């Protein structure tokens, strides 16, 4: 009962791994859907 948190890196690592996956995953998903929509609008225009 020292009043201080000792260790706990596992929580920090878990948060950063999840956050990295969500940020990178969302960025990838936005770019991928953007590319898909480009080819779609070309098809409808041709």
């Amino acid at each position, binding site marked *: 009962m020292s009043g201080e*948190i000792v260790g706990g890196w596992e*929580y920090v690592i878990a*948060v950063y791994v*999840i*956050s990295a996956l969500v*940020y990178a995953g969302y960025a990838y998903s936005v770019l991928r*859907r*953007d590319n898909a929509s480009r080819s*779609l609008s070309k098809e409808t225009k041709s």
Partner: protein
Amino acid sequence: MKPKTLVVIGGTLLTAGCFWGLLFAPAEVFMGDVYRIFYIHVPTAWNGLLLLTAAFICAVMYLMKGDLMWDDRLEASMEAGVVLSALLTVQGSIWARPTWGVWWNWDPRLTTTAILVFAFAGILALRTSLKEPRRRAMVTSVATIVAAADVPLVYFSVRFWNSLHQIQSSPETVSAAFVWPLRVNAIAVLLLMAGLISIRAETVARLREAGSEPPPLPSAQVEGAR
């Protein structure tokens, strides 16, 4: 600046800020290393609320101006806002376990945030069921304005009510050594999301325009099939 440039700058800055906060910033006196979660939790919170506020502004702008461009922007900022607020609750939950001693509790800050995620995720789901662009924009805008009432509730919940969650920190309550990596990450997420929502808004506009083009005449379809 091109949206993709913003995404690259934001992503690079975010990576740098995280390494700064994780490896080079000192530990906190009572929370030790666990406090390092705030370098990503706080920027996620700020930007999540900012994106949902942007969605609210887009909703008002659509209803005032009637330009579907505002509906495209609304969808882009709301989607990103939901992703960030959902991530926010997960980060907060993991941080709460070693600090408060519980994964979750129905404290006003946590309750209002949970409502926020479900309300806006619900509006996004509702959108997919509406095919006619003007009707979809109208329904979404009204629902967004109503749901946006929860945004100030989330922000001020820690001041209005007894809560377990601490009130907002300010540079006066945070050591100078912690302030800069936090600022870098806040700006990084802002740039990253600004880039992503402008790309997303363009995509949504493109899909809407492709979808609303008159379908080919039935005879032409039959001709094509032969």
